């Protein structure tokens, strides 16, 4: 079966600076994939290039069989890709519920508001508060929750646990498991290795703007030496 997302020889630039040097990766339907790598190797850039925020790009990005390179940014979500950025992107002039209802529904199969509130009860309690008055953990929940409404097939998360307390990290892990049970495909970048090993089916290891290894979670114990070397931990 063809993968849901196929990235081949992806190159990307920030102005003059060449950041991605031929990224190759695949994400199968229903899989949870984690990209590991040290700071500055191009993990966030990979996600932002796939979404289409970084436009100076070459190579191939196929999503559900469709070539995404020529698709304008505002059509990415309509093709089925949802994005939760590292900085979460909660809007301060919008209430929690307005933030939640902001992204347009692009396909059937997304969660209803009631289902989302069941999964994230805190958000319902604070539905009328300004979005940025929430705690960091609640903001991350909100950032994920608002994409779940839209019916996208692939959820792209950039460092969802960054700066969060262990109890919140655990909660996000539970949410990702629930999403997996519902058949959602997830691609995430994560520095928290322990968290990543609990949620991912497969890992990509990134270094110097390209993928240097790709292995399923079952092979993780045998890859620890290589991980220590590349991640420097």
């Amino acid at each position: 079966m063809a993968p849901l997302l196929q990235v081949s020889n992806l190159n990307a630039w920030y102005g003059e600076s060449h950041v991605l040097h031929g990224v190759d990766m695949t994400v199968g339907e229903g899989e949870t994939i984690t990209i590991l790598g040290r700071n500055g190797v191009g993990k966030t850039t990979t996600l932002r290039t796939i979404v289409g925020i970084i436009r100076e790009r070459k190579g191939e990005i196929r999503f559900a069989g469709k070539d995404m390179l020529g698709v304008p940014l505002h059509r990415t979500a309509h093709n089925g890709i949802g994005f939760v950025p590292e900085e979460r992107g909660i809007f301060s002039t919008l209430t929690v519920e307005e933030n939640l209802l902001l992204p347009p529904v692009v396909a059937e199969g997304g969660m209803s508001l009631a289902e989302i509130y069941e999964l994230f009860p805190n958000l319902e309690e604070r539905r009328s508060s300004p979005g940025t008055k929430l705690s960091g953990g609640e903001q991350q929940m909100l950032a994920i929750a608002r994409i779940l409404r839209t019916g996208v097939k692939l959820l792209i998360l950039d460092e969802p646990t960054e700066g969060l307390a262990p109890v919140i990290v655990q909660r996000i892990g539970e949410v990702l498991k629930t999403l997996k049970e519902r058949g959602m495909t997830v691609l995430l970048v994560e520095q928290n290795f322990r968290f990543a090993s609990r949620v991912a089916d497969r890992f990509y290891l990134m270094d110097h703007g390209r993928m240097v290894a790709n292995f399923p979670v079952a092979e993780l114990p045998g890859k620890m030496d290589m991980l220590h070397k590349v991640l420097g931990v």
Partner: protein
Amino acid sequence: MTMIFGIPLQAFLGQLLIGLINGSFYALLSLGLAVIFGLLRVINFAHGAQYMLGAFAAMLMLEYFGINYWVALILGPIVVGLFGAIIERTMLSRLYDLDPLYGLLFTFGLALTIEGTFRYLYGAAGQPYSVPTQLAGGTNLGFMFLPIYRGWVVVVSLVACIGTWLLIEKTKLGAYLRAATENPVLVQAFGVNVPVLLTLTYGLGAALAAFAGVLAAPIYQVSPLMGSNIIIVVFAVVVVGGMGSIMGAIVTGYMLGIAEGLTKVFYPEASNIVIFVIMAIVLLLRPAGLFGRDA
């Protein structure tokens, strides 16, 4: 005779009302400027020209097509709004990636071009536009004689201001606008066509200016320079209210109109500069404006 602060009550209330009428125009115009600046980060120097275009649209529609005031009040803003949308799509949008100064210079040049063209075609002298018969005449309020048309201007401006505020604060489209003001790239990644939103916003701002222009046509003379006379005051209003603040623009517009009117009662010599004095004080004490959020 009843006196208030040594001034006859009649004169006081009369100027208060005139201040409210001027304030209505300040509020409508600064509202459009604030909406445009909030999302496009463009200081729209063509706003005065778009206000003038609204007044001319009403006058020319009547002259050439016999279209009356009431239809012009709807059609004028639509025509000028469309004109604004075309300008944004074909020209202004090319400047977004450059320094904001380019947008300012472009709209300044556009204003000069539009005003120059109308001056060439219609001369600098103002031309009259009659008050619609339904709103002609006046009513004696006891303390002053109120021309009905001016009362209408205050009421309809208030309705337009509140309507625009509701559109931005309480609707889905408004939520897109507010979110795109904060983080346009993310809103686009969510699937919202932000470039179209920018075009609509500039069109809406231009239409609001034209709406004020049609309202102004029967009060002031319809002249190519009517916009450049008022726009400097309106910029002061936006600065005092806080750039980009919608409610700030509305409240400050009315407030400064009244302040200007009352200055005419107490110290007439200062009435032309009082708004700019207030602007200077606000800039010194609260640079983000009365309703603006600190950067």
